[in-house]
């Protein structure tokens, strides 16, 4: 890789051992992908919940902090494994809770912003068209690229920390024009009616197009979807397909026309078609093993204020069935607003819990299942229905309203 004078100084250790460590590792990644040089990034976003990081990762982060590591750009954090207020109630392992506190302390020492959210783009940090970022969490990356027109690869936890310490990342993948052009055409012949429907579209396309280097181009979307709808579409595309970019023709900024979405080239004749029947098939593909779900989860990605408001309206004056655990997850910003507006009180009165700064599948989900007897999990998130299946759950994906009805009735339909 071609290095600037500043980068050569970093490599020599002039900026300290942590910066040298970071740049050295980044060069190995850049070399793998044939990056010619580094690109400066405005901010970094790190995924480092304790369940993922574990002891060796924790030692690594603490060692970096102890050696004087300092972020030279903003470093925001993804959700954690623990909401300290609910750790006891959900029987989370006290050792996990203590380690989580150590991760946060080490990141603070480096100058990070521990906001613990996977919806930075709806709260603390919005992507700007054309800027370069080093964001982790697949959902924030695909939203930044597709909706914001900013440029980021998937930066895993260590990689995002390296970027925060050097202020740059290797220039490859989604930092380059050539990578951002559409590769697959998808005709939407159905009007998604809810955020779950958009998640179902993402699931369907992601199951068929599942390669980081592919970019689906969706046509047939008449009106701009809401930010929450785009959030669920992106999160599902990223989760099922490991995708980092999509275009909605006439809506997202690099796809004003079909031709522009394909980088000025003739769009491919072959296309995937998504119909109403396909969406039903997505829901039907998640079969409950038993009629009463053990746990119902709203919020992967974390809930926006509007989503919390919608759930408050649906749960108002109703009671969650005995034996069913209902969890909502959001960030500190929206939790505070929800408290203030009375949404939290309405939701908790039904028996549901509102968790802050976490995401269900990051909460040591296998252990959580063992300690609470969770097996059948119902959610309105296509992404969660995918991710948590790897932790031994029987996952069921249904639209938001159906999940609320199931919470009250203690019974989920289908299968």
């Amino acid at each position, binding site marked *: 890789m071609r290095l600037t004078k500043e980068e050569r100084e970093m490599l020599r250790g002039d900026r300290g051992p942590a910066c040298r460590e970071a740049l050295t*590792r980044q060069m*190995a*990644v850049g*070399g*793998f*992908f*044939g990056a010619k040089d580094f690109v400066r990034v405005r901010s970094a976003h790190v*995924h*480092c*919940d304790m369940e*993922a*990081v*574990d*002891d*060796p*990762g924790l030692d*690594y982060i603490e060692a970096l902090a102890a050696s004087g590591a300092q972020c030279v750009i903003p470093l925001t954090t993804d959700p954690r494994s623990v909401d300290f207020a609910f750790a006891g109630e959900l029987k989370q392992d006290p050792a996990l809770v203590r380690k989580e506190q150590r991760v946060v302390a080490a990141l603070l020492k480096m100058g990070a912003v521990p906001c613990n959210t996977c919806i930075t783009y709806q709260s603390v940090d919005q992507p700007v068209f054309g800027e370069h970022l080093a964001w*982790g*969490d*697949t959902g924030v990356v695909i939203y930044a690229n597709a909706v914001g027109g900013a440029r980021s*690869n*998937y*930066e*895993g*936890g*260590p*990689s995002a920390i390296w970027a925060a310490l050097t202020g740059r990342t290797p220039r*490859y*993948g989604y930092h380059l024009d050539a990578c951002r052009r559409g590769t697959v055409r998808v005709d939407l012949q159905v009007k998604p009616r809810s955020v779950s429907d958009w998640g179902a579209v993402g699931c369907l396309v992601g199951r068929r197009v*599942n*390669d*980081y*280097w592919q970019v689906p181009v969706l046509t047939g979307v008449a009106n701009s979807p809401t930010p929450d709808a785009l959030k669920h579409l992106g999160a599902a595309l*990223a*989760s099922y397909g*490991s995708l*980092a970019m999509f275009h909605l023709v006439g809506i997202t900024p690099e796809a004003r026309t079909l031709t522009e979405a394909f980088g000025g080239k003739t769009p491919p004749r072959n296309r995937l078609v998504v119909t109403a029947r396909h969406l039903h098939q997505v829901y039907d593909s998640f079969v409950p093993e038993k009629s009463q779900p053990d746990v119902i989860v709203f919020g992967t990605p974390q809930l926006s204020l509007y989503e919390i408001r919608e759930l408050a309206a649906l749960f108002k004056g109703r009671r969650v069935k005995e034996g069913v655990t209902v969890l909502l997850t959001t960030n500190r910003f929206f939790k505070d607003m929800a408290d203030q507006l009375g949404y939290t009180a309405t939701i908790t009165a039904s028996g549901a819990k509102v968790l802050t700064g976490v995401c269900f599948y*990051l909460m040591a989900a*296998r252990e959580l299942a063992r300690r609470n007897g969770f097996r059948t999990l119902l959610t309105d998130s296509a992404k969660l229905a*995918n*991710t948590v*299946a*790897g*932790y*031994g759950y029987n996952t069921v994906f249904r639209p938001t309203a159906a999940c609320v009805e199931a919470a009250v009735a203690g019974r989920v339909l289908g299968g």
Partner: protein
Amino acid sequence: MPHHGATRRRRHGGERLVLRGPRGVGGVVEGEALVSRHGFSVRYDCDRARGIISRESHDLYGRSIVDKVLVFTTAKGGVASSWMLKDMRARGTAPRAILFRTTNPVLVQGAVLADVPLMHRLTPDPVETIRTGDWVQVDPGRGRVEITRRPR
């Protein structure tokens, strides 16, 4: 058998094939291959404590990946996997190397952190060419993978 571009020779009574690709990360290792026709995510598919594929719908469900040279179509899903290879190295449950048809950046970043050899974009296609049980030597620096297959 169409092994385009592959070098085939007999050695020790076995069959030898060579795959080539861009420079990977990590050092030279060898081990027994475990080949999947599915993608792979450490977080979504794997029980790290036991080094076993734990997703019920995965074609390697229940199989141990400890010390294997793993072959998958692609890296799936989330960024969390980038921490997890290091964790598995510490637990002694890590694979010896990973070969993908194509990978996303996350597993590469994780492999760099954990010093686990990783390569992709090999010719011929490792998923089609390598068989479970083959003995595989991985040389990321030279962009070279050699398979030794015992006669059946």
